[in-house]
């Protein structure tokens, strides 16, 4: 499969649309594009580390992929956060855009390589890995919003947030790497986390 061709195909209309939209929409689109770029970059880094370490595909997914992907996903957000000092709302929507861009491109690659004929596979893919990337980006966004209240803690806080997202991603990859009931638990994990997340945020806002 030629991921680069797919990348060009998806990104071209977005790049053409980029100058024609303004302010919030432009920023969202920009981060969506950066999410897609980051996904392609992470595919390269994962392949590189897999070749260097000599690990199998499954072991790479459990040990290396979460670290590479989460670091690369955090980088555009961290850059935006440190250089432009955005408002919490802008930071949050940017985090969502990075997560969605990443998940979209990854889903496209998987569907192209494994086929899109089976609706249950497509749904599982969309609701598990797709949601998982968005959840991790949301967590990173929320974490950075917290850090923005105490700028001197930026470096320390960013390391902590990275650790959180990497581990969550690794738990998901570990669960889906094993056959049987565990895999289904893994598939359900992101959606369950998303539901808990929204319920929790609602509870905090109410209280």
């Amino acid at each position, binding site marked *: 499969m030629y991921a680069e061709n797919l990348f060009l195909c998806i990104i071209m209309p977005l790049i053409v649309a980029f100058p024609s939209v303004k302010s919030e929409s432009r920023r969202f689109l920009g981060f969506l594009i950066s999410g897609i770029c980051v996904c392609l970059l992470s595919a390269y880094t994962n392949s590189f580390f897999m070749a260097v370490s000599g690990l199998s595909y499954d072991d790479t997914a*459990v*040990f290396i992929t*979460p*670290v590479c992907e989460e670091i690369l996903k955090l980088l555009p957000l961290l850059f935006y956060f440190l250089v432009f000092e955005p408002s919490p709302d802008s930071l949050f929507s940017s985090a969502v855009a990075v997560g969605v861009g990443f998940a979209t491109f990854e889903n496209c690659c998987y569907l192209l390589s494994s086929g899109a004929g089976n609706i249950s596979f497509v749904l599982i893919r969309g609701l598990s890995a797709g949601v998982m990337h968005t959840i991790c980006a949301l967590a990173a966004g929320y*974490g950075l919003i*917290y850090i923005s*209240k*105490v700028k*001197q*803690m930026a470096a*320390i*806080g960013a*390391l*902590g947030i*990275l*650790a*959180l997202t*990497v*581990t*969550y*991603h*690794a*738990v998901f990859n*570990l*669960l889906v790497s*094993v056959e049987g009931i*565990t895999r289904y638990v893994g598939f359900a994990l992101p959606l369950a986390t998303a539901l808990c997340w929204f319920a*929790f945020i609602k*509870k*905090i806002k109410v*209280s």
Partner: protein
Amino acid sequence: MNINKKITGSCVLNLALDCNILYVIFTKTNIILKGSVIDFFVLETVVTVIQIISFFTLGFWLVIKSKDTKNPIAVCFLAMRIMCFALGSLYYELFYLLKKAPPYVSAADVAWIGSFYFIIASCYLLGIKSHKTPFYAYFFAGAIVVVMLIISLLYGHFILNLLWAIPMAVLAKCAGEGVYISKNEEYKRLLPFFISIIMSLFYELMMFLSLGMVYVIFDALWTVGIISTVLTLYKGVGD
């Protein structure tokens, strides 16, 4: 009362409290009373599961309650610390159960090491940064570095141990500074929190040095130590 006596008293109280809670947990679950041979793996799993559940519960509780405190961000950082640690433990336990072997360097280490950064941030947010560093803060930090160096020499894995040692030493220094500033009336209520941090660091070091059942006991003591850290901070910054 002299501050040194207070600190010693707090340490002894903390240790006694930890041991007492542990004893109650063991006796209530009839693990010791039955007198049967306890399977190490089962006991370790039970302790870790208790740890994960209690940490997640406490984390969510702390985030909800943080608004009622004087320093909500510091409390939220501590909540993130324990949830990050629990996530690491969850990964480790799942890996152990699914792959039938403990992982070498994995995401669990990333989470456990990363969780220290949250509590360091929490300590700095409590205002210890602007004060003088006492000699014993350097002593705590130095002791951790020395112990980790010995562990590296004995068991290898130098880089991994270094990654553990850096945040642990920084945290020990922060806790030492915290104990020092607790002389001030303003910070007096935070003394138990800083003592709890030192005690949990001590348990953690002992976990590095121990094996088998001793490890499980220190793991359980450490869990209780972390819970007391949470409760003492909440009490310390509460209205």
